[in-house]
């Protein structure tokens, strides 16, 4: 194979590489600088609203993995139909979001936080009151545009200026 262009290809390549040496690198030092994640982020956990849930179990029927378990009962004393147990196995969940999409009463939200690792596998199975919204578990705007508007704007790589000189 002949040396096409007699070595100019090699020199052009080296020019490109050395130009990158002088640019600002495209990195983010994680624990000190954090990016804003997407407003529609499908996080690890589910957030449930006890007031709105009626126990219709559409979410349990739609889940491809079968990670949601619901037990309902009639409460004849208060003349209500209440949810006794709502359990989500977040280890089984694949974060597809189909449950949030199907809920007719807007009672389910995907989680927005991502640093929610646990030490034990049985802590991944979350029950009833652990699923409520709290400051450690904010809700994300996946299929809920009213929440998405209030979340901070996502940082995009196209908008971080990467070609400016250091």
């Amino acid at each position, binding site marked *: 194979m002949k040396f096409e262009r007699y070595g100019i290809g090699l020199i052009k390549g080296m020019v490109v*590489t050395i130009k990158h040496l002088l640019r600002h690198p495209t990195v983010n030092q994680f624990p000190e600088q954090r990016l804003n994640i997407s407003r529609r982020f*499908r996080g690890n956990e589910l957030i449930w609203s006890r007031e709105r849930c009626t126990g219709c179990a559409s979410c349990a029927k739609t*889940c491809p993995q079968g990670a949601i378990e619901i037990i309902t009962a009639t409460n004849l004393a208060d003349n209500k139909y209440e949810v006794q147990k709502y359990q989500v196995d977040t280890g089984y969940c694949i974060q597809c979001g189909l449950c949030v999409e199907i809920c007719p009463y807007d009672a389910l939200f995907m989680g927005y936080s991502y640093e929610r690792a646990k030490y034990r596998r049985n802590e991944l199975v979350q029950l009833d009151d652990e699923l409520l919204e709290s400051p450690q578990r904010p809700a994300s705007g*996946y299929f809920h545009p009213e929440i998405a508007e209030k979340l901070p704007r996502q940082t995009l790589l196209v908008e971080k200026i990467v070609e400016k000189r250091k």
Partner: protein
Amino acid sequence: MTTTGEITFKTEPFVLNFGPVHPSTHGVYRMRATLDGEVVLDIEPVFGYLHRGIEKLAEERTYTGFIPLTDRLDYISPMSNNLGYCLAVEKLAGIKVPERAEYIRVIIAELQRLANHCIAVGSFLSDCGAMFTPFMYMFREREKILDLFDMVCGQRLTYNYMRIGGVSQDIPDEFLPALQKFMGTMPGMIEEWENLLKQNEILLARTKGVGILSREMAINCGISGPVARASSIKWDLRKADPYSIYDRFEFEIPTGEVGDCYDRYRVRVEEMKQSLRIIKQAMERIPSGPIRAEVPHLIRPPAGEAYAHIEAPKGELGFYIVSDNSIAPYRCHVRPTSLINLTALREMVRGWKVADLIAIFGSIDITMGEVDR
């Protein structure tokens, strides 16, 4: 036996196992190569290490519930898998997709093609030994695309975005301005990559004329995608059998002449440029309207069968669905692009050296998720 000039001396071939865990087999793929010194005599592929039984799982999930699993087939370009599956079910049930959803699908599919070729070209060049420099540059662009996808559906890898009858959510307001900015920077980046390595003499010596797949062999093996186009077969499903609204856009199909590794690399880069053209045209013409047809969530298509194929970034990806009017498919079969492209590897590799084996394997661009399903 090795003959050098007039001297013949006896050599013995040995079997070297490029195991499932190897720095450059793209995923868990095993090759038992019979080598004579450095020359490859034969390879015997062993795969199946990533088999998850996705086709069988389809019979137990609903039609909509299967879409997250199609994400995991070719995990480098999941939007294309979603699109193929949704097209198959829509063909079966006779659902018409609204206009805005079609345009969004085209934009997303072409962005996915760009992202896939970033990885394909990047890993091919780093398999040739370029020490991950082009890989890093291309991943920077892929990050920008993944940010756009993140904005739309909330995830960066397993999107679950397409639905039967359209897409699941509308694109947010900041999507199109961000896409515009991306389109502004991308051509400059492609040019920078070309300056880096297109005329590099070492790369030319390493890939020109290496691993030639002749036209007849490609047609006989059923190869599709950039590998076939590099062997001078001018076949692209977006022009030959247009699905969705691809017949409304103008773009060209780049082909190679010889069918060696260099042509496959060039075809992919040129396809990236053509994808940019398509996205630009789609962005100008996108209408407003509904993004999803009115279909029930538990859809029951009429009994029958349908096959829908799309031009996925790796080739022709097809879904064959048989339905018996229940909420789950009776049978769902995936035409695995990577597996069928991989069958040509044995022919391409005979007589080349070990270093070429890795380069040729990288240039076919396979993903084991699709090979094993």
